[in-house]
Structure formats: C-alpha cells, structure tokens
C-alpha cells in the first residue's frame, strides 16, 4: 500500500500540513510538522509568480527565492526528509513552470528518486494533463488534482480521470489563506464528490484554527492547513519549529478526534 493510501487509511481523518521549501530551516520545520502529528506533508516549491496564493504564501515564496532556493534544493529537502521519515507521505505543491522547465520526464524522475509520493500542480488542469501527468503516473507519483466550488457535476469526472492519491477540495473560489467557506457548503460538496470517486477527499483553503479543522474533519477525509503555518515560518525565524509543532499538535488533536466527539 502506498504511503498516501496508508495515511488516509488510518482510523481518523488525516491532517495535511503545508510549508514552503527554503523558507527558514526547512528540515527543522518539516520535522516539527511530523512531531506535531501531521499525517501528510505538502512541501511548496517556490515560484516567482504564485498566482493562486494569498499574501502569506506569496511572501513565503519571495523569502525562499531571495534566500537563493533552487529546484535542486527543494529535491534535496525532499530526499533528506524521506531518509529521516520513511513512512510519512510527502507531496510537492507548486506551479507548472518550475516543474516542466527541464521537461516532465526529468522532473518526475527526480521527484521519484527523492521519494516524493504526489505532486499538486496548481496551473495544470486536466485539459493540459499531457504536460506532466503521464510522466508522474509512469513513475508511481500521484498527480493530485484540485476540485473547487466551480467544478460542477458535468466537469467532475474529467477532474477525477487520472487523479491519484487524494482529491484536494478547494473550499472557496479564491486564493489561499483568505476566508473559509461555510461548513454546510463544504459538507455538501464533499458528499457530492465522494459519490463519484473512491479517492479520499481533503479540504483546504482558509483553514486556520483547530476549531475549523475539527469541523471539516467531521465531513472530509483530510484537512489541509497552509497559510497559518507559513505565517509562523515568516514571523518566528529560528523559533518557527517550536511554534509549528505547537500549532500542528493542536490541529492534529482536533482533526484526529473530530469523529470521536461526533460519536460521543
């Protein structure tokens, strides 16, 4: 069973945590997420033009690039993480251009070698799957697609076709780190999506607090938290790992116990 399938096959919903590679002490920050209880790690590949991101992750991208982070660095962080944490799934998330710069085959093969389990590419929709999808699937890396409130029933099958690992449901039509959608709308959309797929559905965009994460965990297979963690990396420098561990632990507790409370 793949690391992603194992993570989403646990008795409780999965906490998916995002940070940007090269923003602070990446190894220490990643370890803090694992120690805090994250089930899946998303490692952001910095890009000069993060069009789908709000201010928090935009700033993290710029901090990382200003510090000189390269694609080789990102892959090295991934490979070292894999050596330290053989069982925790690691997903790269980012934009098309840095991924396809040397060709999709090069990227897929380098990511596979680094022990990467999945790739989320924000700006490669199913219509342009040829640009990266076949190369990833051929090397056993899950292309993880996004579905959004604008992905209607007619379009959903196309999004699911060729998706692997899990489906990332973007809860709001908008950018990362802003407002969260009403839980009723999230519940209805996740239920609708789950009728069409056996893939786990993780929900992200705008999830900042343990309370929000817990509420979503009652209706979805996973909860993605990004901007709130990335802000800690930006604000606390060398102290960031401790802060990340603390917030991740609170989020993990809320997510992992959400359904117990529901039953009680």
């Amino acid at each position: 069973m793949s690391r992603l399938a194992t993570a989403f096959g646990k008795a409780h919903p999965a906490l998916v945590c995002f940070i940007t590679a090269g923003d602070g002490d990446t190894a220490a920050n990643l370890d803090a997420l694992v120690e805090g209880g994250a089930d899946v790690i998303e490692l952001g590949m910095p890009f000069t033009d993060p069009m789908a991101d709000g201010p928090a992750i935009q700033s993290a991208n710029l901090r990382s690039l200003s510090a000189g982070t390269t694609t080789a660095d990102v892959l090295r962080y991934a490979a070292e993480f894999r050596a330290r944490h053989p069982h925790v799934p690691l997903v790269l998330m980012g934009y098309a251009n840095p991924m396809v710069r040397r060709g999709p085959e090069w990227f897929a093969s380098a990511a596979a070698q680094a022990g990467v389990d999945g790739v989320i590419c924000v700006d490669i929709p199913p219509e342009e799957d040829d640009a990266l999808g076949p190369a990833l699937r051929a090397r056993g890396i899950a292309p993880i697609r996004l579905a959004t409130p604008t992905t209607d029933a007619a379009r959903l099958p196309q999004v699911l076709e060729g998706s692997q690992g899990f489906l990332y449901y973007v809860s709001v039509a908008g950018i990362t780190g802003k407002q969260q959608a009403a839980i009723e709308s999230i519940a209805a959309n996740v239920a609708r999506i789950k009728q069409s797929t056996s893939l786990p559905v993780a929900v992200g965009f705008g999830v900042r607090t343990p309370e929000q994460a817990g509420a979503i965990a009652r209706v979805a297979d996973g909860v993605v938290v990004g901007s709130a963690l990335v802000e800690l990396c930006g604000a606390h420098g060398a102290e960031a790992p401790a802060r990340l561990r603390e917030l991740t632990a609170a989020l993990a507790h809320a997510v992992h116990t959400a359904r117990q409370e529901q039953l009680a």
Partner: protein
Amino acid sequence: MNTPLNSFRTMPDERGHFGPFGGRYVAETLMPLVLELEREYRKAQADPAFEAEFNDLLEHYVGRPSPLYFAPRLTEELGGAQVWFKRDELNHTGAHKINNCIGQILLAIRMGKRRIIAETGAGQHGVATATVCARFGLPCVVYMGAEDVKRQSPNVFRMKLLGAEVVPVTSGRATLKDAMNEALRDWVANVHDTFYIIGTAAGPHPYPEMVRNFQSVIGREARAQMLGRTGRLPDLLVAAIGGGSNALGLFHPFLDDPSVKMLGVEAAGHGLDGDEHAASLLGGSPGVLHGNRTYLLQDEDGQITEGHSISAGLDYPGIGPEHAWLKESGRVDYTAVTDEEALDAFQLLCRTEGIIPALEPSHAIAAVKKVAPTMPKDAIILANLCGRGDKDIFTVAERLGVAL
C-alpha cells in the same frame, strides 16, 4: 473564402494550442469560466448583431477606419523602400488597445457580467478599459504595479477621471506581471460576476485567439486600403511586440499572402547580450506562465526574470503564444532593437513626419530604419503606428537630459 491547405490562419486548434504553445494553464477554479467564455465567444462570433455592434462602435466611437499613410520625408531620408504607416495612434485613447476592449466589453455584457477588471503596465490598456467601462456604465478595477503607478501618473489620473479604481500592486516586484498575477487573484475570487479584460494576445485560451481577432481589424483595413491605393500588397509588414496584439492584428489577415514578409520587433533594452531586455522570443525560452505555454524570460529553474525596456508597454517577460508558433514555423521573422535605437527612431519620426510616436512603435520604426535602405525604391514597407507618444514625453525628456 477557402483557406489553402498550408494556411497559417487556422490556429489555434480546438484545445487552444498553437502547435506546442498556448493552451489553458489555469487553476481549476478558473477552468469552468474559461470554458464558458469560449462557448460565449463562439456564439458571439456566429451572431451578426454582435459583429454589427462591434463595427458600429469602432466606426463612431473609436474613429475607424484609421488612415493608411505614405510617409514621404521618412522614405526620402532612408533612401530605400517606400514607408507606409497604419495610423492606429489616431484611435480614441491614442492606441490600438481600444479595439480589443470594445470587443471584450461587448462579450462581458452578453455574458451578464457586472464588473470589469484589467491589468496594465504603462497604463494604455488600463485607460482603454476604463474608457469602455465608462461608456457602458460598468465598474472597473485596474491592477497596476506600484512602481508603474509612480512612473505613469498621468495615465493613473486618466483612469480615475474615467471612473476606474486603480489598485497599486506591491506584491512581487510591483510591475506588469505582478499586476497580472493580482488580476488573476481577483478573478479567481469573483468568478461569478467579474470579466477579466486581458490587454494582449496572451493568457489562457480563448484570449489569444479572441484578442487577435478583435485586433485583426487593423490588418483587414490595411490590406484593403493598400490594395485600393497602390493596387498591390506590401512587401514587408513591421510591428513592435510586447505581448504582441498590435503585431498579430496587422499580420494575421496577411499570413496567407506568400509575397508579404513580416517582421516582429522585440525590445532589446540595453542589449540582448545581458539580462536587461524584454525580448522573450530572441532571448528567452519556452515555459508556462499566466495561462499559456510560450516563450518566457526565465532562469534555469523556471523562475521568471524581470524584463527591461524604455517602453513600459513592451516590458513583459512573456509573449503571445501565436508569435511563439509563428517564429517556430518560420512565417514571421523576429528582430530586436535597443532603447537607444528606439529613442533615435522616435525623434526621427517627429522630425520627418510631424508625428510623435509612442515608444512601442518607435521600436518598429527603428527596425524600418535599418531595413528600408536595403530594399529597392519600388518596394513597400507597411509599419503599424500602434500608439501616439504623448504619454512618453516625460520618459524621453529624461533620457535626453531635458528638465520639463
């Protein structure tokens, strides 16, 4: 009209690809909207009423057809081919940008959108968008890099007079590409009621095709005018290229006339040998940005680099995907001229023809200045004078060391 088998005018394909370029590289939130836009655009294309309204506005509001002008003193000075200009700088708002804005706002209204957004660099597209929004009574938000807001204050004031809200963008490096990022972020958050009027023949399909088609009025008029005036087609078309919409507008109707050669002129800034230029085709490489695959200024990791040009309108690190394809197909030749050469050409046209050109077409004029002397006197060059230079006098004065 039958298109020949080897036509250059049949692109893009049904997926919006121009060979390996173009496409729809956008976030999933935008995909349904981009698909709807394509459906609505196809319906509008098939509707004679849409075309009639577009043409009516071009005639009575924009002032089309723009004149085709033979430049006798410039021709004499260069001592070679006859130089003719398509005078799109005489349009309402002073540039070709308005042609496209008229088309897109009519489409926005058909689609029931109630709010317009746009990006702008120098401010010309922002002014054209603010203009059509005032004309049709729709609220308008223009994203503009904070650096450009400072450098282009007259255009910022124009947009405000026209009722637009100008939002200075401080993210990234606060220039045109960052303004485009911010417009995309607005669009993704307001897809239900907002129409994004993109200013050049780039972005996700169908924008490159749609903008090209709206701008093709330039080439259709020029082709008929030239045939009417001289009884023949020009030998060479010349146009400046930033994103590439004025060049495609001129070139596209001529692409299947094999005797007509074409030259696109990029901004070489301080020179193609360094990093201080905006020549995506001649000094860049293929990649994916802002919804399409095209030539980009980028480093080895695919990070986008900043262009430079004296002309803010050419200062963009990408180019429309159809130009990328036309370059690789060999149908159009591309060259680049430096800031200095453009500045010389700017003054040359002022002096010889009594026309103050914008810095963008000054690049085309600089290329004409190089190529005209090498051609026989009975040859005809047609260059697109896509904008007037009023907006640029401050930049030019500064470069010439004149205090205003």
